[in-house]
Each structure stands twice: as C-alpha cells, then as structure tokens.
C-alpha cells in the first residue's frame, strides 16, 4: 500500500488506475445487463400500469352505489378522490416510463459517440449532460411525450378538483365559507368596481366635452 504522504504522486496514479479499472468493470457489467435491465423495467412498468388501470376500473364500477344519509356525501367524495388519485398516479407512472426510455436512449447514444474520446471526468460529465439535453429536448417534441403530458395535466386537474370537493363537504358541514361562496362574493365586488369605473369614465368624458 502506498503512503499518500510519502509519495502523493504515486498514490494519485494508483487511485487513478483503481478508478479507471472500477469504471471499466461497471461499464462492462452495465452494458451486458442493459438488455435484461431494460426488459425488467418494461415488465415492471407494465405491471404497475395494469394494476393502476384495474384499480381505477374497480373504483369506477362503484358509481351506482347507494347514497347514505349519515355520512353526508363524504363517501362519494372520498371515492372520487381515490379514482382521481389512482388516475394521477397512473399518468405520472406513464411519464416516468417514457423518461426511463429516453434516459436509456440518451445513454446508448452517448456510448456510441464518446467511446474514443479520452478526456477528464469533468469533460465527460459535461458531454453526457449536453448529449442528454439534446435528446430530451427532441423527445419533448414527440407526440408520445406531449400526449402523456396532457394526460398527466388533466389527471392533475381532476385530482385537484376532487380534493377541493372533499374539502367543500367538510367546510359545509362545519359552517365554514366555501371557495364557491368566496367566488360569488369576489365576483360581486368585481362587477361593482367595473360599473363604478365605467361611470367615472363617463363622467370624465362628459366633463371633457363640457369644458371643450
């Protein structure tokens, strides 16, 4: 074992060789397992999506369940939130799967283009990021991504709406003002202000006409 204080340069060289050797092993291992890894990811993702779809379907089928008086609508709102939450998770998973695919594509492209470029680790990381950036930007233009993004955004809106509905039941049953009541109030104030502003403008215009 080299003493780093006695021979720092040899120690650095030793470190470099060890680092290089380990990196080579990891890369070789990673490459040989790439196909298996991709296949496992694919299977896992499909299983995940299928489970969410089944859960969502099961929840949707309870639509016709009878309404119960004592629970005051909480049950149906909770069910709606559960469905929205499941759909949101499903759409988020779909995006994650797409991103897994694109990172993998970015890596494959990087390996091909940078195999014969020996530079510092900093340069290598910068090249990897530059490569990933261009692959991701191109991917974000694809129909696959834009459609998945849309599904994610709409499921997020549904989740947010379902959550607000649940909160509204709680507010109503506890005699607290709801967002809808607040909106009614703010709209009244808005319309009044608008009318006042219009009247002021009319008066001003009349003054201008009167004073020539």
């Amino acid at each position, binding site marked *: 074992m080299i003493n780093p204080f006695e021979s720092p*340069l040899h120690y*650095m*060289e030793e470190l*470099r060789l060890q680092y290089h050797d380990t990196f080579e092993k990891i890369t070789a291992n990673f490459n040989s397992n790439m196909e298996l890894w991709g296949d496992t990811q694919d299977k896992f993702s499909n299983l995940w999506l299928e489970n969410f779809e089944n859960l969502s379907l099961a929840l949707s089928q309870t639509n016709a369940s009878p309404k119960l008086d004592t629970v005051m609508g909480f049950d149906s709102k909770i069910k709606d939130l559960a469905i929205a939450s499941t759909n949101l998770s499903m759409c988020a998973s779909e995006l994650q799967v797409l991103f897994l695919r694109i990172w993998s594509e970015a890596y494959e492209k990087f390996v091909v283009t940078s195999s014969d470029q*020996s530079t*510092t*680790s*900093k340069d290598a*990381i910068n090249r990897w*990021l530059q490569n*990933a*950036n261009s692959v*991701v*930007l*191109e991917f*974000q*233009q694809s129909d696959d991504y*834009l*459609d998945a*993004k*849309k599904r994610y*955004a*709409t499921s*997020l*809106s*549904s989740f*947010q*709406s379902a959550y*607000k509905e649940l909160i509204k039941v709680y507010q109503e049953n506890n005699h607290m003002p709801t*967002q809808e009541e*607040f*909106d009614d109030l*703010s*709209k009244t*104030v*808005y*319309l009044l*202000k*608008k009318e006042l*502003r219009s009247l002021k403008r009319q008066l001003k215009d009349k003054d201008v006409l009167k004073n020539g």
Partner: protein
Amino acid sequence: MDNAVLAQQEEISDYFEKFGSSLNNVISTSDNEVGIGETPKETVLTIDKVTLYRYLPISGIEPANKKPLLIAYSLIGSYKMLDLQKDRSVIKNLLLKGIEVYVIDWGHPNKSDKWLSFDDYILSYLADCVDFITAKHALSSISLLGICEGGVFAACYASLHPERVSSLSLAVTPIDFHADIDTDREDSQASVGYLNRLLRRFSRSELEDMIDSFGYLPGETTGLVFLEMTLVKSLTKYNWELLDSLAGNKEKVLNFLRMEKWLLDRPHHPSEAAKQWLIDLYNENKLVTHEFELDGNKVDLANLSMPVLNIYAKHDHIVPPCTSRALKDYLDADLDYEELELNAGHIGAFVSGKANQMFSDKIADWVSET
C-alpha cells in the same frame, strides 16, 4: 508523470478551489446585496393592485425631444427583468438616452382577483395609465412598448385606440400562436416552441377545468413549466453547475443570485385572464382570426396605424420567432413596420450584455418625437 494523472490532479484542485470560493461567497453575501429593480423611480398612479412607476431622470442627461415611453410587461414574471442589474438595465439605458420612462407593475393578484380579464387589464388598467401620462405631459398620444403577454396587451390597446399610441414596439410577443404549424419540424426547439404545441392538444373544457381547479394559474406552476422546457439544465442547476455559478468573482455570483431572485418572484395569473391567454389565444388563436373581443369590441390588428417595431429573439424557446414575425401578415402593407432579431433567448434578450444594449438602442430610436 502521466498526463492523465496531472489532468486529474488539476481537476481535483480546481474542484476544491471552486468549493472554497463558493462557500466563501455564500457566507459573505446577504440577501440585501442581491438587489434587483434598483433604478430610482416614483409611484405616480395606483389602481387596485396595479402601480404605474415613473423612472427618475438621470442627472446631467439632457431630455430627448421624444414622447414618454410606457412599458407593459407580462403578467407572468415581474417587470424587474428590465432592470435586473445596473450594468444591464434596459430602463437605465433608456434613461441615459434622455427618454421619459413609465412602467406598469401589475402587482401580485390572488384568488380575489380571479375575475380580472384581458378586458380589464387592457381597457381599464392600461388605458388609465395611458390617460394619466398623456394628461401629465399634455399630449394626445404616447409611445408604447409591450413585452411577451404585455405585447399582446399593447397590440390590442393600440388597435382599439390607435389615436393614443404614436409608436408601438413589441418584444418577444406571440401574435399568431399557430404559426409554428407550417414551420419545418426538423428545425430546433426554438423555432417550433413547446407550450404552443402542448396547449393545442387540450380541449377548451379541459383547459377551463385546469385553471378552475387551482382558482388561478399559479406562479409556481408556470415556473415549473419553464423549468421543464430546459429539463436537463434545470436538473443540474443546483448540483453539477452550482459551483460554477457560485465560485469566483463576487459580481458574477451576484448576477446569478439576481436572476434567482427574479425567478422566485412569479405572480399568479388571474383565472379569467389565464383562460383568455391559454384558450382564446394559445389554443384557438383568436387574435389572428379576428374573433378576439374586449368588452364586446373585436380586436383587428389591421387597425394599427402607427409605426410598429417587432423585436424577437432568435433562440426563443418560449415564444418561437415565427409566432412573433407573423404580425406583418396582419398589418396594412404600407405601414412603417420594422423587425429586429436578437441573438438571444426569451430572457437573454433583456439581460445578455450585447442583446440588452441592442434592444435599448433600437427602442430609444423608435420612440416617437414630440
């Protein structure tokens, strides 16, 4: 010694040097030092949450023989972008040219402002600001500069009240939100955009539900959308690139922190105005189909009768240049119309040294004479 060892040694030494310098810069910098929007100004008018600022002339600078310039920024982000740092301030550059500068600060709307629409922002707030300035300077018209969404405000106002605007400048302003459809898909992201293409996939009711579910368009959400548009850069900003941003010259570090401060200040977008912005304009492209109405009046860009300057950024990934440049197709063929291309992105147009100066010089030239 092996070159690789030397390179590695240099790399490690460089890393620790940067780490030390970053730590030192972070410890020795207080938030008060990170000043943005510091050019002296006075409040001359307030209407609800909207404030009209007049920038104080710089002593020793002769007033130009020009009409006052009113600047309308977007509702997304803060007007302080125009005055981010002293040596790269559009506002200061204009003051140095002797221009009288007014800027509208739209404030920070919340859920109580959800009913505010483009009608209110353009025909009330913007119109009141124009009235105030014309009255103060005893003029019948002023010069108007609109930026991004503020550019749409300015174009709509000027087409409904051409007699009140003597010259119009628009910067990074989308006009034909679907202009990218005819653009070659092989072009870079900057030329086709992202937001425009994504929003067209939604139906009107889906977008309405999306905005209604939040009660407004949250500033944090618009911020996340912008981060997503440069995903890898956003993911590495606070780790891999952080030392490069925080190490070294203090002034450079302050520039980075100023941008961070500006980014953090993302006002919410009122619900009704957001519906017009995302649905009527982005989704249904009503501004160029002559269907966009404000208080029952149709906006017709062919009514623009004043000189029009259209500034766009070559690398703009938020507002693709083709969506801005389409303006000329909707103007009278004899109109005094000019374009300026900046070799920058959507934000770089105002903060990169060269683009910023080019932008300011051209605007100063375009402001009409009294």
